[in-house]
């Protein structure tokens, strides 16, 4: 039985982080198709492009030029079409309060950027595996929160 690949979008302005992420996701067992955009403006343009295949998960860097992660999060959640899209905030460490705020605004996952490659791989594998369960087992996405 072959499973359909997951469509993943990464919005990240730092080139090194983009490369790291791409390498890490390539080594995860779950099949993925990765699209990378450089900032929030590009991300929103991509999501509203009628040609775009609907992604399953978006990884959003919080600090990006032009349009930041929080702004994107609010915009995406305000859109009925993208109500049940999984949004993972991907950022350098923040306080518990900040993390809770992003969940309240509709994020599903908060990832503190790991410092080493091995941990990053593990984190991405875990995120995708849990998201896969939500995707294939009819779990309620409204209650999907994961801080990692």
């Amino acid at each position, binding site marked *: *039985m072959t*499973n359909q690949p997951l469509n993943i979008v990464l919005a990240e302005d730092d080139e090194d982080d983009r490369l790291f992420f791409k390498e890490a996701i390539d080594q995860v*067992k779950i099949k993925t198709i990765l699209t990378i955009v450089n900032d929030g403006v590009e991300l929103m343009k991509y999501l509203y492009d009628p040609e775009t295949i609907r992604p399953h998960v978006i990884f959003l860097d919080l600090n990006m030029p032009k349009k930041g992660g929080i702004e994107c999060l609010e915009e995406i959640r305000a859109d009925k079409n993208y109500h049940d899209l999984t949004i993972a905030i991907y950022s350098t460490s923040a306080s518990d309060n900040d993390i809770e705020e992003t969940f309240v605004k509709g994020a599903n996952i908060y990832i503190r950027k790991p410092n080493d490659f091995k941990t990053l791989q593990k984190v991405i594998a875990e995120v995708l595996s849990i998201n896969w369960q939500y995707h294939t*087992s009819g779990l309620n996405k409204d*209650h999907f929160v994961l801080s990692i």
Partner: protein
Amino acid sequence: MKLYMKYDIHYAANVIIQEKLNELGIDHELGGLGEVEISNHVSETQLNKLTLALGKYGIEIVDNLKSTLVQKTKDVIREMIYKEEGLPTSKISSYIAERVNRSYGYLHNLFAENTYTSIGSFIILQKIERAKQLIIDDELTLTEISYKLSYSSVAHLSYQFKKTTGITPSAFQRIIKKRQSLESLNGKEPSKKAVLQSNKIDNS
């Protein structure tokens, strides 16, 4: 106004399946856990119509035996966790094996191959999902919830909740409450609480 609904997924799915089968005049008998026994010959057009009619509700006809077994295992687990009278007292592995009618070892491997997770992790995930729903319903205390879901103590439930979601049960409750008040503040449509969460499966 916001209404909160409770629903039984299995019951709802069975009603839909029966309605559609009757509409198409297909003689059948429901065998529980998504099995339908068809007594007469069904033409291809009928089958296509049925696939189309059920697809609208997120119900798919599975023609692959392995994915059927995985789905059955998932259904048994979910049914076990959502039972009002609590989890079975016998060993969970033998309970699942008996219900699906395959050896646990076989199911364990099949499950891991097809779902990117293990039966054990899936059970924990489902238990935490159930705990989330009960926390939001706000009718039971955390102690009562841990008892209902067969945890040895509240501490054990809280630990597993935190380990699975990264946040504590009370933080979770706070987040969902804040989200809901934010949504009603923005005058948004209530989120799809009442929409049937169908048993979407991957049968590709």
